[in-house]
C-alpha cells in the first residue's frame, strides 16, 4: 500500500470541500509512503472538475464521463474505481464519510478484498504501514487501527479533518477505459430535489442545531437558518425535532442520524440527550442556548447561555452580520 487514491464526490461537476481535503491529504500520505497521489472523478462533468483538481498537488487525475455512471446506481462507479485501483496497484483509497462515500467504501472494500477503516480523522505512518485514527463509540474513545492481510485499504474520511491546501499542481489527466462486458440493474429513473444542499451537514464548518425547545418547524427557517447563513454554516436538528416531523431526517444529528464535527456547534433548545450527544460531541467548540442551565448539554459544552433562544438568536445573527461587513 504505497499509493493513495482520493475518490471525488460531485454532482454534475459541483463538488464539496471535502474533495480538496482528500486531495491534499492524498499527497501528504503518498509522500510519507513514498508513492503517488491519484484522484478519480466519475460521471457527467468529470472532465471539467478534473481540470480544477490540477490546482492541488496530485500526480494523476483519472476521469470517466460514461453516461452509465449517472444512469445507474453505484455499480458502474464501483467498476471504474476497481479498474483504477487495480491499474494503480496496492493503495490506500480515501473516500469522504458521507452518504455517497459510505456506499462506495462498503462496496469497494469487498470488491478489492480490502480492509475498511471508518470515520477517520488522522493518519500515522510507521515503517511504511498506515494507521488510521478515528473517534469511535460516539466519541468516547479514539482508536488507532491498521490494515492487515490485504493489498488495499479503504478509508472513509470524516469531513473537516484535514485542511485543503492548493499548490503543487501539474497533475496529468488520464481517461479510464470503459469496463468491458458489464450490464447494470439498478436504474435511476428520476431524481427529485427536496432541499437545497449547497453544503452537506457533515462537512459544514459551523452547525446551528435546534431541538424540542424550538416548539415547531418554523423557527428552523426563521431563527436558525439566518444565523447559520451568517456564520457560513448549515442547520441541523436533534432526534426529537426530526421525530416530531419539524425537519426531515436528513438533518438529524446523533444516533441513527449524522455525525458531525464542525469547528463550531451551536445547540439551540437541545437538552443534550445521549442520542444527540453521540453525533456531535467531537465538535471543536460547543455553545448551548437553553432555558435551563442544568440541562445535560451543559456537561459537554464550552459555553452555556441560559436564556430565551427566541430573543437571543436574532440579536446574535445581527452581531455576526455586522461583524462581517
Amino acid at each position: 500500500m504505497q499509493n493513495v487514491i482520493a475518490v471525488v464526490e460531485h454532482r454534475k461537476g459541483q463538488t464539496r470541500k471535502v474533495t480538496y481535503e482528500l486531495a491534499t491529504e492524498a499527497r501528504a500520505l503518498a509522500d510519507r509512503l513514498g508513492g503517488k497521489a491519484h484522484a478519480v472523478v466519475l460521471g457527467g462533468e468529470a472532465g471539467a472538475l478534473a481540470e480544477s483538481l490540477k490546482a492541488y498537488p496530485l500526480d494523476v487525475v483519472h476521469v470517466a464521463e460514461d453516461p452509465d455512471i449517472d444512469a445507474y446506481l453505484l455499480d458502474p462507479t464501483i467498476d471504474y474505481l476497481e479498474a483504477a485501483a487495480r491499474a494503480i496497484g496496492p493503495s490506500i483509497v480515501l473516500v469522504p464519510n458521507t452518504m455517497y462515500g459510505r456506499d462506495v467504501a462498503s462496496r469497494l472494500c469487498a470488491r478489492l478484498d480490502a480492509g475498511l477503516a471508518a470515520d477517520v480523522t488522522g493518519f500515522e505512518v510507521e515503517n511504511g504501514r498506515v494507521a488510521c485514527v478515528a473517534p469511535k463509540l460516539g466519541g468516547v474513545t479514539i482508536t488507532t487501527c491498521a490494515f492487515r492481510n490485504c493489498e488495499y485499504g479503504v478509508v472513509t474520511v470524516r469531513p473537516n479533518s484535514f485542511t485543503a491546501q492548493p499548490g503543487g499542481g501539474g497533475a496529468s489527466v488520464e481517461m479510464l477505459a470503459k469496463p468491458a462486458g458489464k450490464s447494470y440493474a439498478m436504474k435511476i429513473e428520476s431524481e427529485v430535489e427536496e432541499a437545497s444542499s449547497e453544503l452537506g451537514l457533515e462537512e459544514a464548518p459551523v452547525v446551528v442545531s435546534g431541538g424540542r425547545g424550538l416548539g415547531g418547524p418554523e423557527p428552523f427557517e426563521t431563527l436558525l437558518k439566518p444565523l447559520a447563513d451568517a456564520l457560513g454554516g448549515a442547520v441541523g436538528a436533534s432526534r426529537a425535532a426530526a421525530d416530531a416531523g419539524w425537519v426531515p431526517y436528513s438533518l438529524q444529528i446523533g444516533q441513527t442520524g449524522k455525525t458531525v464535527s464542525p469547528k463550531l456547534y451551536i445547540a439551540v433548545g437541545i437538552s443534550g440527550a445521549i442520542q444527540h450527544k453521540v453525533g456531535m460531541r467531537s465538535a471543536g467548540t460547543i455553545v448551548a442556548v437553553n432555558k435551563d442551565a442544568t440541562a445535560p448539554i451543559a456537561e459537554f459544552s464550552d459555553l452555556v447561555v441560559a436564556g430565551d433562544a427566541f430573543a437571543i438568536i436574532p440579536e446574535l445573527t445581527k452581531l455576526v452580520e455586522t461583524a462581517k461587513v
Partner: protein
Amino acid sequence: MRIVVTVKLVPDLNAEKRIDPTTKRLVRTGMETVLNPYDEYALEAALQLKAKQGDDTTVTLLSMASESLKETLRKALAMGADDAVVLSDDALAGSDVAMTSAALAQALKKIGFDLVICGGLADDGSTGGVPGAIAEHLGLPGLTNARHLEIVGGTIKAQRETDSGYQAVTCPLPALVSVTMAVGEPRYASLKGIMGAKKKTIATLSGSDIGFENRAPKTELLSFAPPPARTKARIVEASDGATGARAIFDFLRERKLV
C-alpha cells in the same frame, strides 16, 4: 417470497461502552443488549412489504452474534418476524467489516432469500460498511438508503434518499436493500405478538455449517485512548436577548470563530 432482515445485537445506548484492553474488543457482557435501533426500521420495512405481499411472504431475521445474546431477537419476533437464525462461532468474534460481511453473505446463501433488508448503521461499530459489502459478495444489486419500497412483479421500486432529496430507483429481485428511518416508525409488539414469539424458532448456525472457516479480519485495532477532556463550560445567565447574544459573540471572538 422470503425476506431476510439482518439484525445486529448491540449494547444499549445508555450502557457504559468500553473496549477490553487485552482482547481489543468491545465489551458486550454485563450490560443490556438490544436490537440495533436502525435494524428495527429494516424490520418495519420488511413487515410492511409482507403485509402487502400476502401470506406466502416470510420474514427471517439473521444475526451474527454470540449465542448467549440470541434471546434478544425475541423482541423482533414479537414485532412480527417469522423466525430467526443466529450465526454463532467463537471464531467469528473480533470480526471486522470484511469478515462480518463475508460471513453474513455465506449464511444468506445457506438460508436462501429473495430480498435482504439491512439497517443503515450499527450503533457500536458504526461503519455502515456491512450492507454494501454483503451485496458485493453475493453479486446482488445493493440498493442503499431506501425510504420507500414497493415490489411490482419481481421488481423493486424504491425511493432512495440522497443529501438533497430522493432518486426513484428500480431493480430486479433478488436484491439487497438498506433503509433509512423514513420508512416509518417501527411498530410495537402486540400482546399476541409477544405470546406468539415464544414459540418461534431461533436456529443456530456455526462457521462450519455455512462453510466459513479459517478467516481473519483485515483490520487490526492497535491502540485506543480517551479523547482530550473538554474544560468545564462557562455559564452565562442572560436576562434578555442582547445580553445573551453579546456573551456568545464575545466568546466566539475570543476563540476566533467570527
